């Protein structure tokens, strides 16, 4: 769950106002698209949720953690409740598909027995059974993003945050990936997808939050991408 109240972010170095009084609530179990043109503040907003960026003012609560007050070294606790997916997959090139996913469990101190049980299950969930021993560069873009999703899911997060996950994929693969996110959401995980792909958003009847110049300009439950890209 994410709650934001009057969230403002001004970058010290440039003085840029990235977020200008954002108010929004994402409830447990929701599927939400966050849309907006480049430079609208989408990525900053996402980073405020993951703790990579600290807001200048306002209130942010993510999965019961107060992001305005949390100490730097306690951020790991928040992140264990989140699964993050990026546009460029961010897989480790010299690790197999299996190890890329298992790595996420190992580094949070999971037991070997649990890893051996959980990783194959998650890989099957994202449709990568039989691909365990492959390396990332032997896979297609869509498959690589599935590995990244498996990695995001493996620690059983309460929420998946995906930043332009289909940015590097063709329309068919993008749609497939969105269907996978929908499936994950149906299993109970909150999903937040940041994107600027109008067609894709409109193909799903989901809540759409539109942001521009650091403000929420619309928040529609009917699932239509109303914003016209410039």
């Amino acid at each position, binding site marked *: 769950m994410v709650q934001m109240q009057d969230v403002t972010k001004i970058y010290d170095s440039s003085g840029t106002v990235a977020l200008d009084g954002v108010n929004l609530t994402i409830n447990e179990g929701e599927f939400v698209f966050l849309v907006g043109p480049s430079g609208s503040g989408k990525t900053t907003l996402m980073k405020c949720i993951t703790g990579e960026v600290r807001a200048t003012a306002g209130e942010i609560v993510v999965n019961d953690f107060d992001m305005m007050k949390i100490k730097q*070294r306690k951020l790991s606790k928040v*992140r264990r409740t989140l699964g993050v997916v990026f546009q460029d997959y961010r897989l*480790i090139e010299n690790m197999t598909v299996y190890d890329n996913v298992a790595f996420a469990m190992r*580094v949070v*101190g999971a*037991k070997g027995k649990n890893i051996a049980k959980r990783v194959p299950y998650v890989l099957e969930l994202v449709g990568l059974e039989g691909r365990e021993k492959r390396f990332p560069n032997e896979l297609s873009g869509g498959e690589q993003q599935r590995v990244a999703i498996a*990695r995001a899911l493996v620690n059983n997060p309460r929420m998946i945050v995906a930043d332009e996950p289909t940015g590097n994929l063709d329309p068919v693969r993008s749609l497939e990936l969105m269907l996978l996110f929908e499936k994950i959401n149906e299993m109970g995980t909150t999903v937040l997808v940041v994107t600027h792909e109008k067609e894709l958003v409109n193909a799903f009847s989901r809540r759409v939050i539109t942001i521009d110049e650091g403000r929420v300009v619309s928040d529609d439950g009917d699932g239509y991408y109303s914003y016209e890209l410039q």
Partner: protein
Amino acid sequence: MTGMGITVMSFSKITYLLREGFRSIRTHGFMSFASVTIITACLIIMGSIALLSLNIDALIKDLEQQNEVVAFVDDSIEDEAQASALQTSIQQVGNLSSVEFVSRTSAMDSFMSKYDDRLMEGIDETVFRHRFVLHLEDISLMAETKAKLEAIDGIAKVNAHIEYANRFVRVRNIVTVISLILTAVLTFVSFFIMSNTIKLTTYGRREEIAIMKMVGATNAFIRTPFVIEGLILGLLGGFLGFLAVWGLYTALTGNIMNSLTGSFLTLIPFRTVMLPLLVAFLGIGVLIGVFGGVNAIRNYLKV
């Protein structure tokens, strides 16, 4: 979690972290070799300075011991027993490593033995005074001790070479300061090089570190392999440095002892400093390694 990341961990976690530490050393063989070499080299220089200053120190102490203070008993005290009784008051002054009473008779005898008898013709022992020959524990306090001795009732005069004493103290202080400065500089240099070596190994793994941060690995967990890497390299450098200094010192002192200089120079044998030196080297190695590792990874943990 504690700052350094040493907490109770599961066995699988410990083996994972150890394996990661060793893996990094293996995959960055040349850089690991380079940083061990640098630490070894710095420790050889540090060790040489330490041994040199220890030897200078020992030499000066030796010379100091030859620097006597003589306290003359007042002429009015003729009786030998009465004079030697002053010893109690003298000992209360403190800072004395030895106090020896010399009667006027034995003072004359020793004088006579040094010079021609004829020089002393017609002179009797009353020309000499009863005296105490003293050695000090700390010659830097010589002036103070001299004043205290002079204040004793029955002591007429105290002969002490304060200028010499001050010169010795100055030399010793300079040697100590120089060796401390050099040690500090070399420690910093090794730390800096170690830190940069590990930084290079982290560069190739920055993606991994970013992913670890993203999935919620603790800072301590991420840091530990790099600290282990530094620790191993530091210990190795420390041990190799110790072996090198041992070899060099033994060879060098052997040569000096066999040469002419050796006859009037006493050098500290290596075995007397062996253990403290080994402990110091390993300690410095560990320190450089651990802090090098922590420092190298610092920037990656801020996200």
